[in-house]
């Protein structure tokens, strides 16, 4: 009984939040509904994770919902990043409303869509079969389309168009993969599309059909992860979406899509051996890193800069998954959480910078340290965390990925990735230094008095950085969950 409630709660909480905003709109009483829902989601995820770890198995409900340690871990990632993003939302929206860029109606719609977005991501993680999982991933595209295009400017409409077209096509490719895997499964037993059963009976799957299906699934879901070659939507959508939504998209949506690849990898490795997914993922990872590095070098827009940095980290995560050992997958999962937290911090910071300077160009933001020391400090530390400075957890997990790469015969790919990561790190630091340091630009049009950083946003920024540092130094109770989750995916 308690298990049933626990398994359904993570989906019910954001649904309740969405209904709340639909009924009551954006007013004083509902301002903190979003953060409250996110906090409840995080708390439920932690209880669920403890439950799954204690019982040592998975909690299921019918044939549709299943929670094992990997799903529980992903729920925690969703909850934690949602906490940060939604706590900064009220002050973000207040500023937008004061600047006449939003109204109470659009603010209510924003929150409604964000809660629906969270529901879709939770559904992906809870789904017990690949078909339902696919429906959840597609639903994320539909709900976020209007969040991306909310400004209705040329750039916003263009970004939303590209996002929906490329996202839908990618996901259609993934669906072809689902169909073919179902076909193979039909001739191998009665596993259907249930990923657990498919993983158990994978040895009977026809290798020829499974190979095509897995390639389509990885490339298709890879679209939503932002892996090359279907990555073109990512910088546009992240650049145009409101800051709290960019934080969610970059911090968790990409990771949730990658979760789908992890589930596919388990089936693929059992059916085809590890070499097939290893080669495919390593190629995609390197292509993604090359794209990110080449477009970061001369980047002029700081939100797009952060978007390309997300592609870099997804490339690293794909490389770690290509290595595929249990140690590698542990590093990958830790990287997902660390990247989610830090990326939320820097996107929220960037949103605040954009609101106070009125521009998203790097050259328009100069001497941020002098004008807004706290915001500049958080943004700077966040970028340092992104280039894998200790004590942030991205250092430990990045190191784990690289070591696993060398240990599994991916030497050339790992070396190439290291060089690209260094180039990307240098570009990120140079661009950020230009924003933070230097004399503030004088002259007409410069806002004289800058409003201080709202307290709730400041708390979210500091908390995100703090959490990332803490899990980098001592993962604590998270370690057990990480190990159990990695054991589900990692090859021995």
């Amino acid at each position: 009984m308690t298990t049933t409630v626990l398994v359904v709660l993570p989906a019910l909480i954001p649904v309740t939040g969405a209904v709340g905003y639909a009924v009551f709109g954006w007013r004083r009483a509902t301002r903190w509904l979003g953060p409250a829902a996110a906090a409840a989601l995080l708390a439920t995820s932690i209880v669920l994770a403890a439950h799954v770890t204690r019982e040592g198995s998975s909690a299921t409900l019918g044939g549709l919902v299943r929670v094992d340690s990997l799903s529980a871990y992903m729920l925690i990632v969703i909850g934690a990043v949602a906490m940060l993003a939604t706590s900064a939302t009220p002050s973000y929206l207040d500023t937008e409303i004061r600047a006449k860029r939003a109204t109470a109606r659009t603010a209510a719609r924003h929150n409604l869509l964000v809660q629906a977005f969270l529901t879709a991501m939770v559904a992906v993680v809870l789904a017990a079969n690949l078909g339902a999982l696919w429906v959840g991933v597609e639903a994320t595209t539909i709900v976020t389309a209007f969040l991306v295009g909310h400004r209705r400017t040329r750039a916003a409409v263009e970004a939303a168009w590209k996002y929906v077209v490329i996202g839908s096509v990618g996901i259609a490719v993934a669906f072809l993969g689902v169909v073919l895997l179902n076909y193979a499964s039909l001739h191998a037993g009665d596993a259907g599309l249930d990923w657990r059963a498919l993983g158990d009976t994978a040895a009977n799957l026809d290798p020829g059909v499974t190979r095509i299906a897995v390639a389509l699934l990885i490339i298709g879901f890879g679209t939503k992860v932002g892996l090359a070659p279907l990555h073109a939507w990512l910088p546009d959508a992240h650049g145009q979406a409101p800051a709290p939504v960019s934080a969610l998209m970059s911090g968790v949506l990409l990771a949730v899509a990658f979760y789908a690849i992890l589930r596919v990898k388990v089936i693929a490795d059992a059916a085809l051996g590890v070499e097939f997914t290893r080669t495919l993922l390593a190629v995609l990872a390197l292509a993604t890193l090359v794209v990110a590095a080449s477009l970061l070098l001369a980047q002029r827009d700081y939100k797009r800069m952060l978007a390309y940095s997300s592609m870099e980290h997804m490339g690293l995560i794909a490389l770690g998954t290509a290595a595929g050992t249990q140690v590698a997958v542990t590093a990958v999962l830790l990287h997902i959480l660390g990247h989610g937290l830090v990326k939320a911090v820097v996107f929220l910071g960037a949103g605040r910078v954009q609101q106070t300077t009125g521009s998203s160009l790097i050259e328009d933001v100069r001497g941020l340290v002098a004008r807004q020391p706290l915001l500049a400090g958080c943004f700077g530390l966040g970028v340092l965390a992104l280039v894998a400075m200790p004590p942030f957890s991205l250092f430990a997990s990045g190191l784990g990925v690289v070591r696993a790469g060398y240990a599994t015969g991916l030497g050339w790919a790992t070396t190439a990735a290291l060089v690209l990561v260094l180039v990307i790190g240098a570009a990120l630091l140079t661009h950020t230094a230009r924003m933070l340091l230097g004399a503030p630009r004088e002259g007409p049009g410069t806002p004289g008095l800058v409003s201080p950083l709202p307290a709730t946003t400041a708390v979210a920024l500091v908390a995100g950085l703090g959490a990332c540092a803490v899990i980098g130094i001592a993962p604590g109770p998270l370690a057990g969950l990480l190990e159990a989750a990695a054991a589900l995916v990692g090859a021995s």
Partner: protein
Amino acid sequence: MTDISVQLLYLACGAFLLTAVLVVWRRELAAIIRLFALQGVALSGIAAVLAVHERSLEHAVLAAGICALRAVILPQVVRRALPPTGPARETRPLVNVAASLLAVAVLALLAYVVAQPLVQLSPSPVTRAIPVGLTVVLIGFFVLVTRRRAASQVIGFLLIDNGVTAVALLTTAEIPLVVELGVSLDVLLAVLVLQLLAVRMRATFGSTELDELTELRD
């Protein structure tokens, strides 16, 4: 499978493929949308033949659903995205007609090569038609990357989707009903979202030429 039902199945598959080829050939958007609706009818024909063959009520319901969604509703939604004024043709196509048709032939060959393992897994008159579905998927991609109008891009996406549905039907795999419903709903919603965006695009850009989309470049 009886001879007559095999004949009918291949007839429906042939019509399905032919409409996709004609979409590549034609340039007028109104004609393209009519062809797309016809393709929906052919697709529901495939489902209907399979329903009779397997005496399955579920397939029959599926055939009716496909007909309603892909032959009536989706073409209607795309038609609404067409500008009421202005040229309704592809005026400056990226690839000319002859080259396009040649490319389609190459894509069909590719689909037959790729589909070999799929047919060999369980050779039967039904599975031998799988390459047709894959060809339509590839043609959809081709339309998507070579057309400049917003509405033709949507048609490209829908061709891909029709092709995937055809493969799903021909592999005789029973996809769970929840998934089937979710997929149909998702496609409908995605197209509605795109239609709304096309309207906004016209409001801000004054046209739905995708060449105008040049704000976001690196």
